[in-house]
């Protein structure tokens, strides 16, 4: 008897909900999670991962305690649906975010990155958000000759 009552209630809730939507014609707010996909009724695109591209740095070449360089970047939405961007993290790292060890005696600790400048929000399909990040070289007080002339790899992660 109890099971019957519970099932009856669920059916009732569904029916009521459908009736409200179909009959009311009011505003509905739909939200997709990042891993979500449509289930038959969806006609929107798939959730394609963001990409980040960057420009050549501007400003004088880095030196210990010296000038600041600015690197402009673009967070791109290659998909067709809008995507929200709430975070951009930049680090001195090799491809894929691996630790940068290519130059003996020079590492990520020799450099400092500013907080990325970007207005977070939603990127329409095919659109992009622009931002920038600053880079300086830290004067550590120890020999940093190994960093002379080095191209510093930056790794961007947008989500």
């Amino acid at each position: 008897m109890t099971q019957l009552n519970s099932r009856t209630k669920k059916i009732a809730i569904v029916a009521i909900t459908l009736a409200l939507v179909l009959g009311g014609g009011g505003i509905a707010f739909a939200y997709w999670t990042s891993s979500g996909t449509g289930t038959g009724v969806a006609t929107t695109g798939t959730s394609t991962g963001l990409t980040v591209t960057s420009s050549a740095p501007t400003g004088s070449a880095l030196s210990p305690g010296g000038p600041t360089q600015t690197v402009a970047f673009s967070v791109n939405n290659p998909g067709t649906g809008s995507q929200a961007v709430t975070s951009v993290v930049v680090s001195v790292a090799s491809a894929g975010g691996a630790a940068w060890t290519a130059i003996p005696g020079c590492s990520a600790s020799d450099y400092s990155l500013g907080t990325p400048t970007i207005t977070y929000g939603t990127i329409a399909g095919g659109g992009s958000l622009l931002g920038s990040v600053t880079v300086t070289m830290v004067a550590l007080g120890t020999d940093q000759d190994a960093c002379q002339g080095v191209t510093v790899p930056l790794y961007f992660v947008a989500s």
Partner: protein
Amino acid sequence: MVLAIGSLSSSSAAAYWSSPAGSGAGVASTGVLSPPSDVTVPASSGSSVTVGWTASAGVLPVEGYYVTRNDGAVTVAACSTSPTSLISAGPCTDTVATAGTFVYTVTAVYRTWAASASSGTVTVVIAPYGGLDLGAAASFSALGSAVTSGGPTTLRGDVGSSPGVAVTGFPPAATSGTIYAGGATADSAKTAFTNAYADALTRVPTTHFAGDQNGSTFAPGVHQTGGAFALTGTMVLDGGGDPGAIFIFQVDAALNTAAGSTIQLINGASPENVFWQVNGAAGTGANSTFEGTILANGAITIGAGGTLIGRALAVDAITLASNTIRFTEVP
């Protein structure tokens, strides 16, 4: 169910994906500190090596430079510089104590960066015990701004005054040389004395000493004291069997010997090869025996009855009192 609700809604929906993380790469560029250029040294040099260079080019403001010298095996600091004691520009002069062939390296410093460039080789030839060239002053037994003698002083060489013209006490003093009371000869001799004094200052000390040298024995070399020289008894200069053995004493203050004191020359040491550079006044005691050429940046007083086997060359006045001044041990 929610999806179904959304898709079925007839009105527009503000739909967006919560974006999967995406990544990308970028770069920043690090500058370079330019090294100095054209680091030059002479092909050969005495103990004072002049090192020149052209300042670093580039945009970074170099804080300074330090210089090192390498003999093919060991690198040492040069030009009184170090990574923490920089000089703003070249050239600099490095004093080398030993002969050899060297390469100099000049390093520019900017904060924690350094950039270096090296010179060609310089062959340093040092005669560490080479005597001083007295030039036109060599013929003088006494040369100062004035010469005053009391009593029957006897001198073997010339007597001169420059820039003054006062030579007094002759007779009863007498010399086998010529008296130049001012004049071109005395002036030339004074210039030669000045040059010899300057040369003495450049000699690299081989030993340092201080205090009363009574009882001391010196080997040939350049012996330096930062204070006054005193002798209350006997000191010995041992030539080690070399008749060409040179002794140069650098005294950075006054020189004084006591009455009756003696300098003994043994084993080939010769008074013509003994030099005293005195940065002040020099005075020998009564009835003392002093050996060598005194070059004083002040006055010289030879004590009454004292003997000087050598010369008295002074910037200021020379005062004698019944002395014997000759060039050699044998009268």
